């Protein structure tokens, strides 16, 4: 199953740091996303893109995971030689991530908690 089947996503930027929000289409899928879409897996999926740390934040009340990708924009939006200097395509590229299983779990519920910084990887 592709992440695209259970989530929508949006890219943003600040300087050389890219930022991708991944949001569960159905709140019931959020715990599965939280388990599966880890900072490590995001970093591995975007091999060659992220030069620095990948940080993950959680906003369970919106069913959202936020990934902050340091040093991912070719020296920064205003210096980059890239066609997509802002990294606007990153979110949709991340949605090509393969997840285990055929379909989302139908009855799981999200537990509400504050944001946590998880899995800083380099």
């Amino acid at each position, binding site marked *: 199953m*592709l992440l*695209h089947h259970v989530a*929508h*996503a*949006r890219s*943003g*930027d*600040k*300087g*050389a*740091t890219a*930022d991708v*929000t991944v*949001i569960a*289409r159905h709140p019931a899928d959020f715990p599965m996303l939280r388990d599966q879409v880890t900072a490590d897996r995001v970093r*591995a*999926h*975007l*091999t*060659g*893109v992220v030069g620095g740390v990948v*940080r993950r*934040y959680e*906003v369970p*009340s*919106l*069913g*959202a995971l*936020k990934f*902050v990708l340091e040093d991912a924009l*070719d020296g*920064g*939006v*205003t*210096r980059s*030689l*890239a*066609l*997509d200097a802002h*990294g606007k*395509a*990153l979110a*949709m*590229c*991340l949605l*090509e*991530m*393969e997840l285990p299983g055929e379909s989302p779990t139908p009855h799981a519920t999200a537990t*509400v908690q*504050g*944001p946590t910084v998880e899995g800083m990887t380099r």
Partner: protein
Amino acid sequence: MRTVRIGCGAGFADDRVEPALELVEHGALDYLVFECLAERTVALAQLERLADPKSGFNEWLVERMEAVLAPCAERGVRVVTNMGAANPLAAAQVVVGVARQLGLGGVRVAAVTGDDVLDVVRGSDLPLTDGNGTVADLGERIIASNAYLGVGPVVHALELGADVVVCGRVADPSLFLAPLVHEFGWPLDDWRLLARGTAVGHLLECAGQVTGGYFADPGVNDVPGLVRLGFPLAEVAADGAFSVSKVPGSGGRVTVATVAEQLLYEVHNPAAYVTPDVVADFSAARATQVDEDRASVSGIDGGPRPDHLKVSVAYRDGFIGEGQISYAGANAEARGRLALDIVRERLRLLGFDGAETRFDLIGVDAVHRAPEGFRSGGHSAPEVRARVAARAETLADARRIGREVTALWLNGPAGGAGANRSARENIAVASVLVPRDVVRHDVHVLEA
């Protein structure tokens, strides 16, 4: 319960014009805000101003004001904008000129200045926040330094009775928070209220991005009417409760999904969204669909504002040369790769091998950022576009880089098509932090 209605008439410099008029005519607005400055926009405007002291503001200022000033005056809608860019005073005079031409005598236009801190910052040992040295290291290459102002000067301008407030660099959400502070008398240390107003501003500041723009994904997230996408408005109560909607009949959608995406957009840490006015906490935010194309947001909190203000420092960053050429039909991808290999070697022969370069195959790997990710089978692309970009020390060298690509017309793989090239000076932007008290603002009120 009294509410204030704020619309967003532009989310970036080149945004569409007619949705702003639609909001004024049908949105029952109290305020209309145009947000038109990206990270580098003020610096580019500063270059224009250096060439012509009467310029240096948004290219579409006159067109936007001609569209909305009369209906705004008729309905008592006040306008706040950062279209002043590098020259808010000249922009305010232009707005006065438009008002007079439209027969709108008595319209008060305020210009906010003080964000330009080049004299304070230039040559200083302030460290760049990206860790690459200090401002002094940029030497003579520095061309602009603008502090992100908070609500203060905009509230001041509104207190002076301005119908139109023209700013340069003000933090984007602050343009929207200021009318709320002015209308409701929110104390500038009530962090929860300021955070709620900041959430309003953050949701509206990119205009169509919360009403279904930057969201459509056919068959998955369908959005009707993107051709006539409606821009957003927020209805805000004195306690900071608010909903986001758009004018009935306009294109687009406002849903909990569009609102959730935009609330977290470019907010790195959802618990600490830093503006000059407050550190907002969106980490427990909830979005609720209260009506068709109307969503409310709750659960916003905040903490004390930072002691320092962010300053963008723009500097001349050499030149960039670029060239592109297409290949289609039989064996297109292989011919495109051959083209890149040829240019790579040519640049080495010509002595550009030390330069920072980039070789892309548009249609294969130019924008795609997950090379190990999903790929649709092993088929060769039906067409590709080879793209080469490189940094150069002079404009002449930048031109030579693009020429190596256009030269493939006659010297490269079979069927090279639609080649073009460009060369430009690059203006880059770094950031520094300065203590709040070194930034002073002024408000100048003009009358039509």
